[in-house]
């Protein structure tokens, strides 16, 4: 059975979801639960760290599409970071860079949230 798990770290207003293993139609509901848990707590500034994600199929990509609207409606965002080339290529093939901020590192994604916050204040 495919191994997949998520963990979440909160730093101030920003939550980072760490993905590990194989994200497919079987494991996508686990990631949906993770997003739902953050949204239930009104945490809408979300960074996703893909460093340890070995595999993603369209079922996994669909999870990001399912939550982005709700998150942005609440002045938040889902920023994607630290993808391997293999995982990035799939996002790229489906045109995701048009709609999502994708960063080389988690730190850059967090900094982008902080910059936006500064601009607003």
């Amino acid at each position, binding site marked *: 059975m495919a191994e997949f798990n998520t963990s979440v770290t909160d730093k101030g207003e920003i939550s980072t979801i760490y993905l590990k293993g194989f994200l497919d139609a079987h494991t996508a509901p686990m990631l949906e639960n993770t997003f739902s848990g953050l949204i239930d707590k009104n945490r809408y500034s979300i960074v996703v760290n893909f460093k340890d994600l070995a595999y993603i199929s369209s079922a996994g990509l669909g999870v990001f599409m399912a939550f*982005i609207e709700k998150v942005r409606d609440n002045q938040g965002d889902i920023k994607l970071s630290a993808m391997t080339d293999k995982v990035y290529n799939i996002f790229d093939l489906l045109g995701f860079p048009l709609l999502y901020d994708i960063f080389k590192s988690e730190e850059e994604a967090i900094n982008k949230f902080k910059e936006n916050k500064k601009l607003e204040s």
Partner: protein
Amino acid sequence: MKAEKNKLAKNKLIIKSKTENLSEIRDFISSAAGYIGFSKETTGNIILAVDEACTNIIKHAYQYSPDGEITLILKTAKDTFTIEITDHGKSFEPGLIPNPDLKKYLDQRRVGGLGMYLMKTLMDEVKYKSVPGKFNTVSLSKHINSNGSK
């Protein structure tokens, strides 16, 4: 290329229509594509295309009923590696599903149809055969000499 016809260690997998079996399907394809000598990148693309085909079967043909059967048969002939995937679930007309306008899809947060788009993009050829009430077969092919070029 070390593969010749009928030399794959295992060329058939029959498996139940459960999403938890997708990892076994991926392992099966990974061993075969690796044995044939495809690059790591091309092997990854073939694995993803097969995963998408089987996910579509589980979702749409069997509508998540876990007792359906999916049969994967691997063939190598004339420098082409083909994976034939057959189910006995609900048939569908692939011609009725257009290539998605990706920008529009993403704007509308639509997910369905992306799997089929990936299959067509990642493989050299995708063919469907359907006899309603009997079986559906999708054949995914990759040229063996296109190693790493896609």
